[in-house]
């Protein structure tokens, strides 16, 4: 996979590049701000973009704006936001254009090298990868919070994992329960949230997030 990396802290940029190359991916460009990211993505037409949020010159949301701009130019371009913070507003803006091929992870997720690369590959394949922290905050900030409160703790856990883009099988493995049990939880969630059941993983996420007002 050909990847463009945007990260202003040199030490992380270098680390990220080495990590991705270790895992057999090609980093076609590693840049340090939003403007360079736009240029690099236009030049290399990568399979995926990994970008920090806060970058020069203003250190606010350059990365996010650049990524949204990139997806406006090339709809469906897989992007993975890689930040030290979860900002509900950022996540909502990112997901406003659809959740297919979108990821938002906290930087420490990179410590689980395998998980991180899995998430990136899932995003590149058109899936979704949201940090559990992002999901928690989106659920917490959601206007539909009253409805969410009606879920049992277990169902909320399952909803969180669904929002991360996990399949029923993956959720079952994570929670150490049978897939059958997960299916029951999911059905309950859809019932309680008044959502139609859908087969495709990322459409589930889309539905959930749309319901959460993201």
């Amino acid at each position: 996979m050909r990847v463009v990396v945007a990260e202003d802290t040199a030490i992380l940029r270098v680390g990220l590049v080495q990590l991705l190359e270790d895992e057999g991916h090609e980093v076609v460009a590693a840049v340090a701000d939003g403007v360079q990211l736009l240029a690099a993505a236009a030049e290399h037409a990568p399979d995926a973009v990994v970008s920090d949020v806060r970058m020069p010159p203003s250190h606010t949301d350059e990365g996010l704006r650049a990524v949204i701009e990139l997806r406006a130019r090339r709809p469906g371009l897989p992007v993975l936001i890689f930040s030290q913070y979860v900002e509900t507003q950022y996540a909502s803006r990112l997901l406003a254009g659809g959740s297919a091929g979108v990821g938002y992870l906290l930087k420490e997720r990179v410590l689980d090298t395998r998980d991180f690369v899995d998430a990136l590959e899932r995003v590149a394949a058109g899936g979704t990868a949201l940090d559990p922290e992002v999901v928690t905050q989106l659920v917490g900030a959601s206007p539909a919070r009253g409805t969410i409160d009606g879920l049992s703790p277990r169902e909320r856990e399952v909803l969180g994992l669904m929002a991360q883009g996990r399949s029923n099988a993956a959720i079952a493995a994570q929670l150490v329960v049978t897939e059958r049990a997960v299916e029951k939880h999911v059905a309950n969630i859809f019932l309680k949230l008044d959502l139609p059941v859908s087969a495709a993983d990322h459409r589930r996420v889309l539905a959930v997030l749309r319901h959460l007002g993201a």
Partner: protein
Amino acid sequence: MSRTIRRALREPFSARAWRELVYSLLSAPFALLGLVAVLATCVLGVLSAGVVLLPLLPLLLAVDRGLAAAYRGLARSLLGLEIEVPPRPPRGRGVGDWLARNLVDVSSWRAVGYLAIRFPLGLVQFLLGFGWWLYSLLFLLYPLMWRLQVDTATHKGGGDPGLGLAGFRFDTWARSLILVAFGALVLLAWPWVQRLPLLLDRWLMVRLLGPSAAQRRLALLEETRELAITQAAATLRRIERDLHDGAQARIIALGMRLGRAESRLLKGDADKAVELIAEARAETREIVQELRELVRGIHPPALDAGLEAALTTLAARAPLPTTVRVAVGERPQAAVETMLYFAAAELLANAAKHAEARQAAIAVLESEGRLRLLVTDDGRGGATLAGAGSGLRGLAERVRVADGRLTLDSPLGGPTTVTVELESPERR
């Protein structure tokens, strides 16, 4: 001597005298306007006891303030006197509040006071300034008027033309020149006479049309409080940035290295894994160092042992040989110690970085309840407080927030001495 005479001869034709003449001329209408405003304010003030007219009083006070503003304008353009604008009465919430705030507004009533005194003073100004000048002009132009009068008189066959004094008539060219000479003397005296009431006027203007001492103090406190808030926010922001871009990023990078080492080990590439782990260990040491620096920047641990201990540590770590002398009685407040420490640290860094100094000295002295920090270096001097973004100016602002003062003595070629002076009213 001749210079004094020349100056005296030139004075009636100076721009200053003419500007003051315009001021004297305007004094009459302004004095009348002021009188009307003051009377209206007072009458309404008395009538306001009946409450009904009370809401009108603030409007009149606004008119009084407007006149005061006009006077400040006149003073600036005609007298070259710059008077600070006093603060406006605060807006307040609701009609009652607005009323109360306006009625007790110090600057408004001071303006009323000025306008009241200004009425007689303005008339005097008009007479001694404009009247005197006109008087001299009449004498200077006497021959002309006399001639005109003679012509008209002859024409009409009227009585004796011209002026007379005790039977002496100025009715020839030669005689009329006596009056011209008198007029010239009057004109020479005019600028000085005109300036007499101005002496009092200027004194009054500064005291009544500008902010009061309390208002000035309040403005200073408001300004420095603003600075304090901005500085506190900037400090937090700096610490956040240092942590975000520094330690936090490094720890993530450290974790990445360990993660890569792990996958190398799983793949059986032990050599590369060992290399990555060694790098991670070095990285850990750097993180600890960075955090230590950061902690020192927030609150140097040595400061707990006192200013002298902290400054000695600072001097020992400085890139240039630095002596430290601390001569204070009791320990100052912790906040004062911290401020002096960071001021010394910044000044020392400046000396090393910008002044190309070879050595420096830090001294903390106490006299009359004041603490003084002196940082001297033998660098190239020429430091200034001017210019935005000057580090020294930022420091001066921080010192001002603590009601202190930063003074700078830095001739070109050095040496440079920066003094930070702080009150030390309370002890800890």
